[in-house]
Every structure is written in structure tokens, then in C-alpha cells.
């Protein structure tokens, strides 16, 4: 067919309605978030807006938010990672084992008995486990050409099984204060996990927006064949995003165990749903090539606000899950609608 495009900005010929839709699809997450905040503030007589509650919301989302940042990289390349929840559990248990050393087997809440290596080694260990997991999955995806969905679905099962094996006798609990600080501490009024989340999000924002690597991630997701023919090392980029999400899942596993003062095999169960939902609600396209870290942060907060608001209003917790699922599908449906408009 002939080229129907002109050099003139197309907005000139667009109707008002078709101009609003793309604008809406761009700012929809922010608009939704503001609306939700207003609604909950009114419905809870302002309890929602209290600083303590707001920090609570932020602390609740920070761990899944960390993973959502990594998931943004993965989804930008048109991939997916379903294994993150299980990886969180393995990483958390690894951190606990390192921190507690021989004391890990004897169920004990007393920190004086600690004979392990301290929080720093524990954190590094958790991250190393995450990176290794990501590297193995990324290799299977790039070298063995197994679709990401399948590889990470397998990973979901494998890592959970490993976590159950490691923990065998039950949760590992009772860390020293320095360890717990990473999950429970505050700097001023701000919870430490929130600071970690926002710092990581800021780094990821810069990487995606201002580095060569970030450009290549968008290129690979936008058009893999064109990226290859433009000289981008596609396999390396694909491998790297699974390493990144593995790194962040490992870190999240450590922070979670610090916050709960306990590592257990069932930690992180179902994280993949909330994380993918946050990324997609934030405007990142599951088809790859489109999306931002800013959107993911907004998407994460939106889910946190929703859950918190429903809790404050004493809504049945099962309804939360139903709501998140519905919103996820609705957002993607709207995206498809906006896209079909754009192509017309």
C-alpha cells in the first residue's frame, strides 16, 4: 500500500476525540492514582492522607516495587519473568543462612547467638543467588531459544522447590539489629526499604533514559530484527535484563527477610502477579519497546494505594485480588483500543 503519512504533524488533522485518547493513555496512570487518592481520602475521612499511613503504603510497595523496576527492563524487551517470587524466597533464605551461620538450624530468636557473617555478606549472598538465577534463565532464553514464559515458569517451580528444600525445618528467624535495619529501620521518618526502592528506581530511570544500554533495550524490544541489523548485540541485551531482574529479586529477598526478621520458603508467593500488574498499569507494553520507570513507580504506588485504601475501608481482602486482576485487564484493553485508534 502507499504511504499514507505526511510530514505535517498529524495532530492538525485529528479530531478532538482522537487527540484525547493518546493523551489519556499517556497520563492515565497518574490520573487514576490521583483519583484513587482523592476517593480514599474522602471515604476514610482523611485517615488515608496521614503521613504515617502514606509511609506505610510506600513501605508496603517498596519490595515488590524493586522487582517491578527489574520487570520493566524485561517487559521492555517483550519478555516476562514469572520466577521472581520464588527467587525472592531462595535469596532470603540464603541471606538468612549466611547471617546466622550454624545458628540457623537451631530455631532461635536471640541475636546474641549469631555466629554468621553479618548483614553485608548476607546481602551480597542474596544478590549473588538472584544474579545466578537470572543468568541461568537468561542463558536458557538466549542460547536454547526457549520462550521466556516457559523458562521462567519452570524457574518459578524450581526455585520454590529449592527454597522448600533449604528451609526444611521451617523459617529461619531472628537477625541482629544491623540486619533488621535494612527492612525495619528509618532514615528520619522515611523507611529504609522506601529509600532503597526510590534509589534503585532513580538509577534505573537514568540507565534507561540516558545510557547506550538503555537505548539498546528499547531497540531490542521495539523491533528485534531491526536491532540486530543495526548492530545491537541482541542476545547480550536479552541476557542482561534477566540478570538485572535477578539482582533486584535477590536484593528484595534480603530486604523482605530483614523486614519480617524471618526468611521462609513461602516468601514472595504470588509476587509475579502484582509486579507484572504494576509494570503494565504503568504503561509498559507487553509487546516490548514502550514504557518508562516513572510509569512503573506510579503503577506500583497505584496498586499499593488501592490495597491500603481497601484495607482502611475494611473491604474483604479477597476483593483486593479481584480488583487488581480486573484493573490489569482493563488497562491492557484500553491500551489495545488506543493502539487500534492510532493505526487508523
Amino acid at each position, binding site marked *: *500500500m*502507499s*504511504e*499514507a*503519512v*505526511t*510530514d*505535517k*504533524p*498529524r495532530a492538525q488533522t485529528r479530531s478532538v476525540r482522537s487527540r484525547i485518547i493518546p493523551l489519556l493513555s499517556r497520563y492515565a496512570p497518574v490520573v487514576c492514582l490521583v483519583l484513587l487518592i482523592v476517593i480514599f481520602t474522602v471515604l476514610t475521612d482523611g485517615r488515608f492522607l496521614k503521613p504515617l499511613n502514606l509511609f506505610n503504603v510506600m513501605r508496603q510497595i517498596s519490595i515488590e516495587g524493586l522487582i517491578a523496576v527489574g520487570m520493566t527492563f524485561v517487559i521492555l524487551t517483550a519478555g516476562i519473568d514469572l520466577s521472581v517470587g520464588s527467587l525472592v524466597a531462595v535469596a532470603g533464605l540464603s541471606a538468612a543462612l549466611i547471617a546466622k551461620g550454624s545458628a540457623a538450624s537451631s530455631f532461635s530468636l536471640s541475636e546474641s547467638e549469631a555466629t554468621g557473617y553479618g548483614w553485608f555478606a548476607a546481602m551480597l549472598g542474596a544478590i549473588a543467588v538472584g544474579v545466578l538465577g537470572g543468568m541461568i534463565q537468561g542463558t536458557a532464553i538466549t542460547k536454547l531459544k526457549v520462550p521466556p514464559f516457559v523458562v521462567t515458569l519452570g524457574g518459578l517451580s524450581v526455585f520454590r522447590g529449592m527454597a522448600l528444600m533449604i528451609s526444611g525445618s521451617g523459617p529461619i528467624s531472628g537477625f541482629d539489629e544491623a540486619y533488621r535495619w535494612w527492612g525495619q529501620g528509618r532514615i528520619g521518618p522515611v523507611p529504609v526499604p522506601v529509600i532503597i526502592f526510590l534509589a534503585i528506581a532513580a538509577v534505573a530511570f537514568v540507565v534507561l533514559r*540516558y*545510557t*547506550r*544500554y538503555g*537505548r*539498546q533495550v*528499547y*531497540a531490542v524490544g*521495539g*523491533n528485534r*530484527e*531491526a*536491532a*540486530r*541489523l*543495526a*548492530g*545491537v*548485540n541482541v542476545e547480550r541485551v536479552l541476557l542482561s535484563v534477566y540478570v538485572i531482574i535477578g539482582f533486584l529479586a535477590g536484593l528484595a529477598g534480603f530486604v523482605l527477610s530483614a523486614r519480617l526478621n524471618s526468611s521462609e520458603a513461602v516468601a514472595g508467593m504470588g509476587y509475579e502477579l502484582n509486579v507484572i500488574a504494576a509494570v503494565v498499569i504503568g504503561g509498559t507494553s507487553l509487546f516490548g*519497546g*514502550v514504557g518508562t520507570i516513572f510509569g512503573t513507580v506510579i503503577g506500583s504506588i497505584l496498586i499499593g494505594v488501592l490495597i491500603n485504601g481497601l484495607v482502611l475501608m475494611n473491604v474483604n481482602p479477597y476483593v483486593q485480588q479481584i480488583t487488581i486482576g480486573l484493573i490489569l485487564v482493563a488497562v491492557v484493553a484500553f491500551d489495545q483500543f488506543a493502539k487500534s485508534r492510532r493505526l487508523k
Partner: protein
Amino acid sequence: MSEPLLRMEHITKRFPGVLALDDVSLEILPGETHGLLGENGAGKSTLLKILSGAYRPDAGSIMLGGKPLELKTPLDAQKHGIVTIYQEFNLIPTMTVAENMFLGREPGKGAFVSWSRMRDETEKVLQHLNLDLDPMMPVSDLSVGEQQMVEIARALSRDSRIIVMDEPTAALTEREVEGLFRIVADLKARGLSIIYVTHRLHEVEQICDRVTVLRDGKRVGGGNVGELKIDDFVKMMVGRSSTQLFTRLGGHRTTGPIVMKAQGISRDRDPTNPHATLLKDVSIEVRAGEILGLAGLMGAGRTELARAIFGADPFKRGSIEIDGKPLILRSPVDAIRNGIGLVPEDRKQQALFLDLAVRHNLAISSLKDLTWGRWFVSDRAETALVERFRKALDIRMASADIQIADLSGGNQQKVVLARWLALKPKVLIVDEPTRGIDIAAKAEVHQQLDMMARAGIAIVAISSELPEVMAISDRIVTMREGRVTGSMPGDRATEESLMHLMAIEQTAPGAAIAGEGRI
């Protein structure tokens, strides 16, 4: 003379900006093999799509067996016994031969399929065609030639009266071609009519009874094979008074030493891409400041050669040298590192990131040169680069930050050219550089290629438009069926001499290439 089975009369079809078919008539007799000839873009595919119900004509009528026929959908055509076998088959690879044969009309009772009946009836049809295929074999395990036989068998089992074959031999080996010809003769003997679309003129002599030749959407000739010679077909396809669309750019460029030399490139059938043309011992060389035109009909192997040189597809034998140094090409990254660039054939699928801004599209390959602190892309350097090429190539855009999807085809193509120029390549391969862009933009792209050659870049230009190849090339190499068939200086080439090499010449006169190659 018997009454025609099919009559397409005064068919006209218009697309935005193009008159694809202009008052074309075609008559098919019962039991004949009718060749449909024409250059790329002559209107053959459009005519076939109308016959198969995929397009509807703006004017004209179709009569089948004396009755008027209205084809609204491809299903209508099939119901009336008109079956088209496209180059890309319509088989479901994961299903068996038998399942494919009976797709949509499985024998059986109610919701249940009778596998035994399906198998037996498939067996019958296959035997009829002397095909030794297992009905229960999945289609994906068959060769391209065998898959085609399954398509033909399916057409036969549906009581077809007319079978349309679009370039049936393009991806076949010689032995498979022989098999196909036997079956075509057999179908004919049973009274079926065959419309045979091909670029391979010697095949027309072998199996067609009559031919119709199209050019620029018009019927320009035809008649009985035997009374007409291959040279007559060539004359009709090219047209004596072909309007010179492009003026040859004035003044010869001075060419330097040989920059890129590809020798003995051979490519076997690739299971992941079975429709790619097989390359057979292809050698080309190109000098600094030279534009080498690569001419050939569809399926000649030009794109496959370009992708092999660029490291995009693996090849089995042969070597590629840059400045006398042999290269190891594992991927395009290696080719780019050694100064080779490729502007691919399909802009949207293979070159552009439609969701990204113009600036990101332009700079994607040269980010290394635009960084500060090793990793960060310098906004200023990128803006300067984009600005430089906006001026040099006259890229018209509201801003470099708008999505590239919002530019016209011509401006998109300039951005892709700029992407490569930014890397200062030694060799730039451009595959159909002006496809889908308007005439004015075409002329601009030609000028820019000329400019690049004058700057010392060795350019390999692939084009299906002969006037374009002739206008821009210092030297033209022709290919046919995966082989180089000839070479001539650009200013001495005529459409007829090129078409002869592209459609008829059997093997490469090796000495002639070496002799004529130097300018």
C-alpha cells in the same frame, strides 16, 4: 478453438496513487497451461488476487464456463474451483498431510473425524499424482517441494478446474522442478487449466501453451508458445518505448581500489527460512567510489547475497574480504565493525523502531561515538549528529523528537541512510532503497547515493526497477536463481540486455565478468 473456460474482461484496479491494472483481459482455455509474464510490479499479483477473490476489481467482469462470476471472498473462488497456490504455502505445518488435505471439510460423523477415511482418501489422491508421501506425516517434516505437491494434491481433491501457480519453482531444486513439471503435464491431461506465473522464461517454453504478458498494469501482448520466442517475451516485458523515469546522473565517478570482495558464496537451504533463494558460488567485488547495481528478478538471490555479506544469515562456503583482509562474520556486529552497512529491503520490519523518536532511530548504530563517561549518551552530541544529517540529506521533520512513524517513507529512508553514514562505512549495501517512496524522494535518494560514492564509499545497490539500476550504477551485475549471470557497465546496459541476463542466461560466463567488470 474450444470455448474459453475462464474469461477476465477489461479488469481495472486502482490503488491510491497507482493504476495497478488498466483494462486487462485474459482468456484461459480448458486444459491449457497459460503463462503469465511481466516484470516486478507489472500487475501479475494484483490480477491473481482478483481471480482468487482477495481483491475486487474496480471495473471489468469475470466469466467462468460462460456464466458471470462474482468473487467476493477467497472462499467464493475456491467454491468455483479456482485454487491459487502462493509462494508462501497455506499449509499448517504442525498438522499431517491428511489433515491439511481435508482442512475445514474433514470426513466423519457429527463432531467426530474419521481418521481412516481421511487417510485412505488422501492416499488415493497422492497415488493419483504418483507421490510417495505418508499421509500421516506432519507437513513440517516435508521439503519445500513436497509441501508444494501437498498443495497441488489438495487443490486436486477439491475438484478444482483452474489451478493458479505463483512462482512455483522459485524455491525448488532442479529435481523437484522436474517432478512439478510432470505433475503439471498430468493435470493438463486431465483437462485442468493452469495459470503459471513465472520469471523463468525457459520454463515457459517448456510447459506453457500460451502466454499473456503484462507491463505497467496493461496487457502488452501474448500468444502461442512456439510461434513466439523467448526474445519476443523479453521485448514485450521490457517494452521498446519504456519511459526513462530516471536520468542518469551526470559525470562518471572515479573509482578506487577494490574494497569488498565476496568469493564463491554458497548458501544451502535453511530450515528456518525455506523460501530463501539458494546461493550458488556467487562472487562480486566493488571498488571505492563505485556504485555496483545488482539486478535480478524476484527470487534471484540478491537480498540473500546482501544478508550473507552483512553477516545477517550464515552461508556455507565462500569468503568475504574487506581491503584484502578476510572477515569472520558471525553476526551483523562483525560486519559493522569492519565497515559494512546494510539498508534492508523492508524498512518497517527490518530497519525502523516505529515507537521511537527520529533521533533514537538515527543514532542507534553510532551510540558508541556519542557517549560521555563511556556509558552515557550525550544529548548534545546526538543532537549535533541528527542536525548534521538533517541538513546533509534534507530530512524533513517537525522535530527530531517525534516518532519516526510520523515521517513520510522518503524521510524515513533518509534517516536509515543517515544511520549508516554516521558510521562512515567502507561498503554500504542498499536493498531496494526507494521502495514505497514517491518519485521526488526517489530522485533525492539517488543523488545521495551518488554523493556517498563520490565520498569514496563502495555502494552495492539492489533494485527491482531496471531504470533505477541503470540510472545509478557504474557497473551492473545480474543474478538469476542464485547465480551471477553477467556484468556490464551501467552506461552501456539496456533493459533488454539486462532482462536477457536476468531471465534467460543459464550460467555465469566467468571470464566475461572479470573482463567487463573493470571500468
